[in-house]
């Protein structure tokens, strides 16, 4: 409940404060958002599994974001940033789907 509230507060703050994304952050922000989304789905799944741990959630969240950003950075340095970003998004999307499927099985048994 507090987490959902935090999500809503964050969205509202982002919409109304309208901050400018710094230039150095622009390539990494979309990938970081997708990675964090993956971490949140993973956390939700572990919550339904009954194995949720806040420490693990925090570590996975931060690690996801950092690794995703690192991959994008590396891709930019190697000149394959666009392709690597696409790859990261695809992998994270697959993980989000599998987590969503697990959540669905937990909630609906289907």
């Amino acid at each position: 409940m507090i987490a959902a509230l935090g999500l809503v507060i964050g969205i509202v703050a982002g919409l109304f404060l309208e901050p400018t994304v710094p230039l150095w952050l622009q390539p990494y922000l979309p990938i970081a958002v997708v990675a964090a989304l993956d971490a949140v789905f993973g956390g939700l799944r572990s919550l339904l599994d009954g194995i949720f741990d806040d420490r693990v959630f925090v570590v996975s969240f931060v690690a996801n974001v950092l690794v995703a950003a690192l991959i994008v950075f590396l891709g930019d340095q190697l000149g394959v940033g666009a392709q690597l970003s696409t790859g990261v998004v695809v992998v994270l999307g697959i993980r989000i789907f599998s987590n969503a499927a697990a959540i669905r099985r937990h909630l609906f048994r289907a």
Partner: protein
Amino acid sequence: MTEHEPETTPGAEQRGTGSPEPAHQGPATHARSSARHRLLASLRPRPTRGQLVGALLCALLGFAGAVQVRSNQDSDLSGLRQTDLVRILDDVTERSGRLQAEARDLEEARRQIADGTDGSLAALEEARARVDTLGILAGTLPATGPGIEFTISDPAGEVQADVLLDALQELRDAGAEAVDLSSPAGRSVRVVASTALVDEESGRGGAVLVDGTKLEPPYLFRVIGEPRTLAAALDIPGGVLDVLKQRDAQGLVLQRNELTISSLRPAATPEYARPAPQDGDG
């Protein structure tokens, strides 16, 4: 990367909270209800550390997502990476070059067309002026301008074609540009280069054939040219007026500021002569 996947996490990572769950995995209905119980339980606001940290991270996620969506909507260019921007810049530069070349071509074509039009207009204007000049000289166009009216009254019938011809030559020497010879009977003849003055056969004076038209005295020359020069040319000692006096005739010269000669002569179409091709431009 995330350690929430059930394949890796249950035994290794979870120590305190995960203990009751493996016992409930047996019956399907029980597992579903327990999962829902856990979801409902987590929905209850409990200010535990885990809930607060999760809320913080979710807030961060929502913030970042909203900012990203917003900045993505703001402009398409700011979200692109360097290689894409370079490619777009190349495209735009190339397109700009193409458009500039096209603009140069079009301006060149426009300049040529404008020059051609100007040349055609100038040639047309020149041709019109030449037609006017030639029409006045050939007597096919009415003419207007300053000039004189020269009346020869011949009560004695002594004025013959030679006198009129002398007068005409004198007027031409003085710069007459358009000449009309008429008699009170109303008939008037436009005098041009080919005009012939012939004494009528029937004896002394009295009538002159001008290009086949019979004119009777008094004769009236209407001449367009510099009025003073024309009048002076007729008045020189031993000139036309003196000859008229010797023949008991009278000449009267009236200078006019505005004179219109409307008598015309049909344009003769040459039957054999054709314009010879000229060298250079026409």
